[in-house]
């Protein structure tokens, strides 16, 4: 069966510090991968998606970037965090050609 991991679960970072969140998927090959942000009481905002290694599409211009160095690894990064980057970050995967997305446990980021 497929599983998706995210770490860390919780992160508190000062403004201006760098960020690296990691997501890995097990039990499937060549998944589509997604990064979302969920602000308190708000819907999911799609940040990035990837259909293959090195292929990243950005949905919203922002302070963040994403990379996919391996087939089942997706990384969300920032060089300098802003207060507005605080939120709940979710990684998800889907099988190519299908619509259903499966989510990881999420990372709660607080920028102070």
């Amino acid at each position, binding site marked *: 069966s497929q599983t998706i991991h995210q770490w860390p679960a919780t992160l508190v970072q000062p403004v201006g510090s760098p960020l690296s969140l990691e997501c890995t998927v097990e039990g499937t090959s060549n998944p589509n991968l997604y990064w979302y942000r969920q602000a308190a*009481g708000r819907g*999911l905002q799609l940040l990035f998606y990837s259909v293959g290694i090195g292929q990243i599409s950005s949905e919203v211009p922002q302070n963040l970037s994403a990379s996919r160095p391996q087939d089942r690894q997706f990384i969300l990064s920032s060089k300098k965090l802003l207060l507005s980057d605080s939120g709940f970050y*979710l990684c*998800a995967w889907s099988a190519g050609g299908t619509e*259903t997305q499966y*989510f990881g*446990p*999420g990372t709660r980021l607080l920028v102070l």
Partner: protein
Amino acid sequence: QKEVEQDPGPLSVPEGAIVSLNCTYSNSAFQYFMWYRQYSRKGPELLMYTYSSGNKEDGRFTAQVDKSSKYISLFIRDSQPSDSATYLCVPGGGFKTIFGAGTRLFVKA
């Protein structure tokens, strides 16, 4: 106009009640419809998936889609305290999947 709209709630019901959660969408290109359940501080999990107008039943849950009016519903029978969560309406199609902001549901024991 938002592509998908849900009443944010919270909706509070007693245990055993029938719950109706509703959603409207604006894009007629949407062809599939999903409901996700999200417990507090957890990632969303798929609850129901349907590809057509009509009803789909899975245990205590029934998803209803009316494409002509762009209206989606989720019914929960015999609601339980464990059903307390946020329910996200998720229509999609044309290489696009939109997650609604969700309706918070509380089921009181």
